[in-house]
C-alpha cells in the first residue's frame, strides 16, 4: 500500500505526542517519603541570610543549624552547635563553647570561624539581608551593616577593593584597614569619597561597582573601591579558638540565645559559597549544610525532598529519613491532599472548610487551633484629618464590635483583642484599650465636631485583596455606619500596591498584621517608635520612644517588662492602631505524627517529629487543650 505523505504527517505527529507524554511522566515516580507536608508557596531561596517567610523558615531550619536551637514544645533555646555557653554578669558578653562533633555535610568540622564568616556575610551591606536587623543586638553590628552611612571620621574602617568583573560574585575584594579621616560629598552626583588613613598615609577612595572600576581609570589621586565601612573587627564577635566564640552585645538582650537559634543567623559554608558563587551554591548538588537534613533535589513549584543528614552531630535522634515539602499554594488543594492521605501536615485548611471541620462530631483528632503570637490590627493615618484627633480615633475603637468579627467571620476561635501584644509571654501583662462602648463613642465623635457622624469625611479602609480581609473590612464599615452614622468606603489593592500605599502613607485606615519574631513584647512594641519602619501611621511620642529605649538598656527582666508595659499603655491610650483579634494556629496533623507540638510561635522543627502508626491515643499535637 502506498504511503500517503499526509497520513504520514498525521501519524508522526501522534507519535511525537505520545513520546513526549511518556518522556514527561515516566521515570519520575518517586519512592514515597516518610513524612510529607504542605509548605505553601515556592520558597524564595535556601540562603538563610536573605529569606524571611514561613515556608523558607521551615526549609532553612531543616537544613541548617545555629549555635542554639529551639525546644520544639517550649521554644526555650537548647544547645545545638554550641554545647554550652557562659553569660557575663552584665549580660553583655556571651561565650559559646562549640561542639566538637558538629560537621558540615562535606565532612569538615563546623568551627567558630564559620560563625564569624556567616555573621559578617549576613551583616555586610552587599548581601542585602532584609533581616540583618535581627543581629543588630551585637555591638556595632548596626553600624557595620549600614555601610558608608554607619561611619564617622575617626572610626576604624575597612576598604573593600574591587575585583575583576568575572570573579566569583560571593568573594570579597582585598581589604585595607585604616582610620577614616573624612567623608566628602561630590558635587552634583550625590556620591561620596572617603579619605582613609592607611599605613600612615592618607588615601582617597570612591565606591563604584566592579564593572565601572574595570572599564574606567579613576580620577587622579583617587582609588576605586567597592565600599568603605566600619572595620568588622569592631563588631562584637570574636573567635577565641576554633571551638570558642565570644559575642558582645550593645545592650542586655534577654532573648539573645533565642536569636542565635533563629534561622537568619544560621551559618553557611564559606568554601561552598565562595567556590560556586551566588546563586549556584544553593543548587542541591553544590549545597553544603550542617542541619538535621540535606536537600536531595528541588523541583520548582513541586517539592523539596529532604533526606536525613549522615553527618549531623545528632543524627541518631532524627527519626525521619525522607521528608517531602510540597509547594502547594492553594489551601483547598492542600486539604485534599491531607484528606486523601498524601500529606501528613498542612499549615491551614481553607477558612470555609475549617468552620465545617471544627463542627464535626465527634471532634476531629487532627485539628487543634491554639493561640500564638500574632495580632491583626487596623492602622490609622494620623497625618490626615480627622484621624489626627484622638477623640475620633477613640470613637472608632469604641464603636467596634470585635466579638462580632471573630464569631461571624473568623472560624478557628480567634480571640477579640484590645491590646497589641498577644497574651502568653510569661511575666508580661498586656495593656488593654477601652472596651466597646457605642454611647461613649458617639459622644466623643460629637465632641470632635461630628455629631451623629454629620460632616465626617468619606474615609476608606485599605486592605490587600483577600476574601477574609474583605469580609472584615465590610463588617467594620457596617459597624461604624451603625454606631457612629459615618459612611466609609473599602478599597482593595493587590499585595505589592498595598504595601507601597502604606509605605507612602496614601491611605486613611489600613489593615495590618504582625507575627512575633521572638517571644518578647519588644517584637511588637518597637514597631511604633518614631520613624520605625513599620510605623506607617505618622504617630510619634517622645515618651514612648524613651520607654522603648530604656527597656533596651534595662538589665532587670522585671523592670524591663514594666517599662514595656508603660509603653504599650501609651500606645493603647493614643490608639494610632486599633487591635482587632489575635491569631490562632490552624495546623492539621495526622494522628500518627508524633513530636509535633502546638506552641506560641507556631514553629515545628522536623528533627523532633517521628511517625508512630500504632499510636492510638491523642498525639502531642492534640494534647494541649484548645481554648474553649
Amino acid at each position, binding site marked *: 500500500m502506498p504511503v500517503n505523505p499526509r497520513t504520514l504527517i498525521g501519524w508522526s505527529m501522534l507519535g511525537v505526542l505520545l513520546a513526549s507524554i511518556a518522556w514527561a511522566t515516566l521515570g519520575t515516580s518517586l519512592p514515597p517519603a516518610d513524612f510529607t507536608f504542605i509548605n505553601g508557596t515556592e520558597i524564595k531561596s535556601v540562603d538563610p541570610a536573605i529569606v524571611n517567610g514561613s515556608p523558607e523558615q521551615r526549609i532553612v531550619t531543616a537544613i541548617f543549624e545555629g549555635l542554639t536551637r529551639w525546644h520544639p514544645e517550649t521554644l526555650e533555646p537548647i544547645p545545638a552547635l554550641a554545647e554550652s555557653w557562659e553569660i557575663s554578669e552584665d549580660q553583655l558578653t556571651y561565650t559559646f563553647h562549640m561542639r566538637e562533633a558538629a560537621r558540615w555535610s562535606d565532612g569538615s568540622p563546623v568551627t567558630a570561624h564559620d560563625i564569624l564568616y556567616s555573621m559578617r556575610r549576613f551583616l555586610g551591606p552587599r548581601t542585602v539581608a532584609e533581616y540583618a536587623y535581627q543581629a543588630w543586638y551585637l555591638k556595632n553590628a548596626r553600624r557595620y551593616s549600614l555601610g558608608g552611612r554607619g561611619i564617622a571620621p575617626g572610626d576604624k574602617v575597612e576598604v573593600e577593593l574591587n575585583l575583576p568583573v568575572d570573579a566569583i560574585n560571593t568573594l570579597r575584594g582585598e581589604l585595607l584597614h585604616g582610620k577614616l579621616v573624612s567623608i566628602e560629598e561630590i558635587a552634583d552626583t550625590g556620591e561620596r569619597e572617603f579619605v582613609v588613613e592607611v599605613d600612615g598615609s592618607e588615601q582617597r577612595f570612591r565606591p563604584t561597582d566592579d564593572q565601572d572600576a574595570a572599564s574606567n581609570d579613576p580620577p587622579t589621586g583617587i582609588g576605586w573601591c567597592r565600599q568603605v565601612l566600619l572595620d568588622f573587627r569592631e563588631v562584637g564577635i570574636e573567635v577565641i579558638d576554633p571551638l570558642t566564640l565570644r559575642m558582645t552585645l550593645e545592650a542586655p538582650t534577654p532573648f539573645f540565645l533565642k536569636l542565635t537559634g533563629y534561622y537568619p543567623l544560621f551559618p553557611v559554608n564559606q568554601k561552598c559559597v565562595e567556590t560556586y558563587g551566588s546563586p549556584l551554591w544553593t543548587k542541591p548538588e553544590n549545597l553544603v549544610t550542617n542541619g538535621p537534613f540535606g536537600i536531595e533535589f528541588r523541583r520548582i*513549584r513541586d517539592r523539596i525532598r529532604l533526606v536525613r543528614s549522615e553527618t549531623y552531630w545528632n543524627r541518631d535522634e532524627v527519626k525521619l529519613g525522607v521528608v517531602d515539602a510540597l509547594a502547594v499554594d492553594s489551601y483547598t488543594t492542600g486539604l485534599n491532599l491531607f484528606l486523601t492521605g498524601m500529606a501528613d501536615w498542612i499549615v491551614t485548611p481553607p477558612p470555609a472548610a475549617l468552620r465545617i471541620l471544627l463542627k464535626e462530631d465527634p471532634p476531629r483528632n487532627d485539628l487543634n487551633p491554639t493561640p500564638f503570637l500574632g495580632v491583626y490590627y487596623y492602622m490609622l493615618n494620623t497625618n490626615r484629618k480627622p484621624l489626627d484627633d484622638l477623640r475620633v480615633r477613640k470613637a472608632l475603637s469604641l464603636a467596634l464590635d470585635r466579638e462580632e468579627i471573630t464569631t461571624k467571620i473568623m472560624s478557628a476561635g480567634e480571640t477579640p483583642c484590645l491590646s497589641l501584644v498577644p497574651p502568653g509571654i510569661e511575666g508580661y501583662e498586656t495593656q488593654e484599650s477601652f472596651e466597646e462602648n457605642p454611647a461613649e463613642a458617639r459622644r466623643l465623635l460629637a465632641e470632635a465636631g461630628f455629631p451623629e457622624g454629620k460632616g465626617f469625611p468619606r474615609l476608606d479602609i485599605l486592605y490587600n485583596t483577600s476574601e477574609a480581609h474583605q469580609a472584615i473590612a465590610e463588617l467594620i464599615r457596617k459597624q461604624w455606619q451603625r454606631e457612629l452614622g459615618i459612611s466609609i468606603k473599602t478599597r482593595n489593592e493587590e499585595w505589592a500596591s498595598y504595601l507601597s500605599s502604606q509605605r507612602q502613607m496614601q491611605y486613611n485606615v489600613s489593615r495590618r498584621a504582625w507575627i512575633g519574631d521572638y517571644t518578647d513584647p519588644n517584637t511588637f512594641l518597637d514597631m511604633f517608635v518614631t520613624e520605625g519602619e513599620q510605623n506607617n501611621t505618622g504617630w510619634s511620642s517622645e515618651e514612648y520612644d524613651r520607654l522603648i529605649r530604656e527597656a533596651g538598656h534595662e538589665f532587670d527582666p522585671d523592670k524591663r517588662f514594666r517599662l514595656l508595659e508603660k509603653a504599650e499603655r501609651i500606645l493603647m491610650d493614643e490608639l494610632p492602631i486599633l487591635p482587632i483579634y489575635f491569631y490562632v494556629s490552624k495546623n492539621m496533623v495526622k494522628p500518627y505524627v508524633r513530636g509535633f507540638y502546638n506552641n506560641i510561635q507556631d514553629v515545628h522543627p522536623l528533627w523532633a517529629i517521628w511517625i508512630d502508626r500504632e499510636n492510638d491515643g491523642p498525639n502531642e499535637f492534640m494534647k494541649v487543650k484548645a481554648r474553649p
Partner: protein
Amino acid sequence: MIAFCFRRLLWMALTLWIVFTISFFLMRAVPGGPFDSERALEPEIEKLLMKRYNLDKGLGEQYRIELGNYLSGDFGHSFKLTDYTVNEVIAEGLPVSMALGLFALLLAVSFGLLAGIVSAVFRGSWGDFSLMLIATIGIALPNFVIAGICIVLFAFLIPLFPPAGWGSINQLVLPAFCLGAPYAAYVARIARTSMLDVLSQDHIRTARAKGVSPLRVVLVHALRGALLPVVSFLGPAVAGILTGSLVVEQVFAIPGLGSHFVQAATQRDYTLAMGLVMLYTVLLYTMNWLVDMSYAVLDPRVRLE
C-alpha cells in the same frame, strides 16, 4: 513557501519587539516594586538592590540594557525565586505544562471531533441534541468548577485518581480532562457546523452517487474539508494550552508555568514576567504560523503567498 516563512520571521521579530516594549513599560507603570515587602528595607540596602538589578537607572537606560540582554539570550535571574534564572524556571515548568497540555489536547481533539462528527451525521436526533448540550455546558462551566466536580467524584467518592500532584500517569488524567474539556466542547461545536456545511456540498453528493461507503464519505471526503475551521481554532488554543493554565495547575498542584505567569506579575518579578510573556508570544506566533502552513497541506486550493 520560503519567502512566506521569511516574511513571517520578520513579522515575528517585529511583534516580539513591540510586545517586549509594551510589557516593559506597563510592568514598571504599575505601583509597587519587586522589593516591597511588609518589612521595610533600610534605604542603604534598597539602593544596593536597585543597583544590582539596574533599577536605579532611568527607564530608557533600563530598557536599553534589558533589550540588549534579551538579544543575547540572557533572560536574567528571577527576582523572587532567587536561586533560579528565568531560563531554569522555564526549562523546568514548560515540559510539565506541555505534557499536560498535549494530553489535554489529545483528549479534546479526539472527543471533540468524534462528538462533532456524530452530531453532524445524525443531525436533529436525540444523540445530536444531548452531545451539543454537553458541549454547551462544557463551554459554559469554568475550569475550576469542572475540577471541583471531578475531584469530588473521582478522588473522594470513587477514589480512582489522586486529587493533586505530578509525576505519574494517573495524576495526569483528572487535570488533563479538566483542562481539555472546554476545548473539546469548542472543537465539537465547530466540527459539527463545518461538517454540516461540507456534507451538503456537491462533491459529497457525487461521492455518494458513485457508491462510496457512507463511512468513507464521512471520514475521508467530508472530514478533510471540515477540519479546516477546527485547525484554525486549535492553533492559538494550543499555545494557550501548552503554556499552562493557572486554575488547573493551582487546583491540582502541578509544577507548570501557569502559576508562574500570574504570580510573577503580582509579585512584580519583572524578569520572570517578561520571560514568560515573550515565551507566550513566540509560541502563539509559531502556532498561528503552523496553522497557516497546515492549510496548504489540508486543502490543496490554498496557496501560501
